C-alpha cells in the first residue's frame, strides 16, 4: 500500500498529492510516469511524475478530475493508502546538451512541464516557460515556474490573468523577436501540442511532445497506447511518452483517447452520485 502523505488543492479541479513510494522515488526522472489503482477493483491509470524526493521516498502527482478514477482519488485524504503505485515508467526527458529551451505547458499539463523546466534549469540551460490556462482561477504552479525560468509568459484564454491569447501566440512572438531555441518542449492537451508543433515546424525548431494515451499495464504488454509517429506504430509506454512533435499523428491520437467516452461519462456520473449519497 502507498500512503498519501500530503494533499493540496491547486485549483477547483486540480489536486496535488505526495505519495509514499520509495522504490519509485529512487529512480524517477522528469518525463516519466506512474500507474496507480486507488482500490482493489479500481482501474489502472497513468499519471506523469510531477516531482519526487529521493530522500523522503515520495513521488508527487498532480491530477485533474476528469473521470471516475480521478474523482475517487480526489476523495482520498492524507493518511489514506492507494492500492497500487507502480513505476517509474517510460523514458525520461532527454535534457543532455540543451542550452536554451522553450517549455510550453497547457492546463494540468503544466504539472508535467514543471519538472522538465526545473531539471533544465538545474543543469544550467536557459529556460523560457510559456504556460497557458483557460482563466485566472485555474492557474497552477506559477511560483514554481517563476523559480526555474529565465522568462515566464503567462497566458489565459479569457485574459483574466497574464496576457490574453494562446500559448502559440506567445511562442511565435518570442521566436519572431529573435530568440533561438535548441528545442521546444510542449506538454498539455493534445490539441495544444498539435498547434505548437505546427508553429515550430515553420521555423524548423525541434519539438518534443509528451503523449498521454489510454493505457493499462504501462510496460508494453497491451499495446493500447499505440500511436503513429513518422508513419510507424509506437507504444507510448515503452517508446515514449515523449516523441518528436513533427512526426506524431495528433488527430489519430485524439480519436483514440475518445474511444471510451460514453462509458467514462457514465462511470463518472455514477461515482459522483455515490459520493453525493455518502454526504
Amino acid at each position, binding site marked *: 500500500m502507498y500512503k498519501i502523505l500530503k494533499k493540496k488543492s491547486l485549483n477547483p479541479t486540480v489536486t496535488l498529492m505526495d505519495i509514499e513510494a520509495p522504490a519509485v522515488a529512487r*529512480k524517477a526522472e522528469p518525463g516519466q510516469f506512474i500507474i496507480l489503482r486507488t482500490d482493489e477493483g479500481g482501474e489502472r491509470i497513468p499519471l506523469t511524475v510531477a516531482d519526487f524526493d529521493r530522500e523522503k521516498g515520495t513521488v508527487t502527482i498532480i491530477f485533474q478530475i476528469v473521470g471516475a478514477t480521478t474523482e475517487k482519488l480526489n476523495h482520498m485524504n492524507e493518511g489514506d493508502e492507494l492500492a497500487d503505485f*507502480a513505476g517509474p*515508467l517510460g523514458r525520461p526527458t532527454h535534457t543532455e546538451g540543451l542550452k536554451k529551451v522553450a517549455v510550453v505547458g497547457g492546463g494540468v499539463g503544466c504539472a508535467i512541464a514543471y519538472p522538465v523546466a526545473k531539471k533544465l534549469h538545474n543543469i544550467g540551460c536557459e529556460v523560457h516557460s510559456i504556460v497557458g490556462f483557460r482563466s485566472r482561477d485555474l492557474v497552477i504552479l506559477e511560483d514554481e515556474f517563476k523559480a526555474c525560468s529565465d522568462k515566464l509568459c503567462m497566458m489565459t484564454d479569457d485574459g483574466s490573468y497574464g496576457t490574453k491569447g494562446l500559448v502559440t501566440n506567445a511562442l511565435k512572438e518570442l521566436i519572431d523577436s529573435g530568440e533561438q531555441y535548441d528545442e521546444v518542449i510542449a506538454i498539455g492537451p493534445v490539441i495544444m501540442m498539435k498547434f505548437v508543433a505546427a508553429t515550430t515546424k515553420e521555423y524548423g525548431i525541434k519539438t518534443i511532445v509528451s503523449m498521454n494515451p489510454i493505457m493499462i499495464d504501462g510496460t*508494453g504488454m497491451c499495446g493500447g497506447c499505440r500511436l503513429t509517429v513518422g508513419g510507424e*506504430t509506437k507504444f507510448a509506454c*515503452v517508446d515514449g511518452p515523449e516523441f518528436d512533435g513533427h512526426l506524431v499523428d495528433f488527430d489519430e491520437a485524439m480519436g483514440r483517447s475518445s474511444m471510451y467516452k460514453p462509458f467514462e461519462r457514465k462511470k463518472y456520473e455514477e461515482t459522483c452520485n455515490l459520493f453525493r449519497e455518502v454526504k
Partner: protein
Amino acid sequence: MPNMSLKKNPMPSQEPEVRNKNFSEVALGYTEEMAVDEAQRCLHCKNMPCVKGCPVCIDIPGFIKKIADRDFEGAYEVIAESSSLPAVCGRVCPQETQCEGVCVRGIKGEPVGIGRLERFAADYHNANFKGEVHKPESNGKKVAVIGAGPAGLTCAGDLAKKGYDVTVFEALHLAGGVLVYGIPEFRLPKSIVSKEIDGLKAIGVKVETNMIIGRTLTVDDLFADGFKAVFIGSGAGLPRFMNIPGENLKGVYSANEFLTRVNLMKAYKEDSDTPIKQNRRVAVVGGGNVAMDAARCAKRLGAEEVYIVYRRSENELPARAEEIEHAKEEGIIFKTLTNPTEIIGDENSFVSAIKCVSMELGEPDESGRRRPVVKEGSEHIIDVDCVVMSIGTSPNPLIRNTTEGLETNRHGCIVTKDESGLTSREGVYAGGDAVTGAATVILAMGAGKSAAAAIDEYLK
C-alpha cells in the same frame, strides 16, 4: 484388473449454449467415482512413457495409483513433489501432445485422462486439505525471480522447497502472469491461481507486486541488494500487429489488451471501472489458444457473431484440439484460409469492416507447413465492429535494455547456454517465453524447474 474401456470418462461440462453467456468454468471436474474409474484405466506399464512426456516429470502412474486406491490427498502429494501448480496444469496443459500423447492406452482407443485426474487430485486437495504446511528451513541465501508467471512461480517454488529465501518481483498489481491476465476465468478460475500462489507464500516465497524490473529496479540493483542469483521469467509480453492499414482504428485490440481488460481488470463485470467496447461482430485474427480465448470471451461479452480469421487451413490451427472444439460448440465461426489486408473505419474512426483475401495452400515453407498463397481476385469484406489481433508476442525489451552483458538473439529472446537456463551473465538464469518466445504454460514451468535445479547447484 484394469478398466479396459477404450474411452476416457467424459468430462462433465456446462452446456455450450449456457456457458457461452457466462464466465464460469466450462469443465466441471470429475466426481470421486469418475476419477477412480478413470484411474483404473492405467496399465502401470514399466516404461512409463507418460513421465518422459511431462516437462516437469510428474510420477504419473504413482499419483494415478493413489487415486485408484482412493488416497486422493496422497495423489496430490505425489504431484506436488514435481509440480508447483497442479490445479493449473490439470486445466491448461496440452496433454494430448505430452503425457497423454504417448500413453500406451492411446495406441488402441483413448489415452488415460491424465490431465483430468491431475485436476481432480489438485481440486480435492484445495477443497479438503486442513493440515499445516511444512515450511522448509531457510539456508539464508537470497534468490530473485523476475515475473510471477508460470516459469517464475515454478522456479520460486522449487527453490523455496530447498530452503532459499526467494522474492518474486511482479510488474502488475497481481501475481500469476498469463494465468491471471491471459487465460480466461472460464478456463482457469482466478481463485485457483490465487490458491496456488498462497501455497507458495506458505512455504516462504515472497511476492512483491508493482515492481517493474528494468524500471523500478535493474538486475544489477538486485545483486547490489544481496541477491545471489536471479531468474528472469518475464515472458513474451510485447504484442505483434500485422502492419496493415487501419490497425490503429478504435475497436482494434491486441489479444493481450483485450484479454487483460476482460481477465485481469474484470471488464466483463458490471461494476468494473475498466471499460471494454461493446461489440456485435468480432473478428479474431490468428489460430492459437490465445485466439480461441479471445473469441470465446468476445462471445460471452455478448457479440452476436465471432469469427476466427486464420490464413492457413483448419489442419494447421496451432490451438489445442479441445479449445477448437469448445469454441465451435459455443458458436464461434471459423474463417480459415482467410487473411486480412486492411481494417476499414467509419466516419468516426471506429472499425466497420475488415478486408480479407482468400488463401490456398502451396508448397511447404521452412516450418514444414504448406505455405498459404493468395487466391487471385478473392478480395472480400467482412462487416465487423471489433478486431482482435492474436498473431503472437515478442519478449519485452525492458530487461535486455537495462542489463549489460545479457545476450539476446535477433528476436529479442534471451540466449541461454543449455537447459539450465544460464545466460551470458554469471548468476543470471532465464526461462519461459522470455527465452523461447510465446509457448505454453507447462514448457515455461519446465524451464523454471530446470533453472531452479541449476541455481541450487550454483549456490551450493
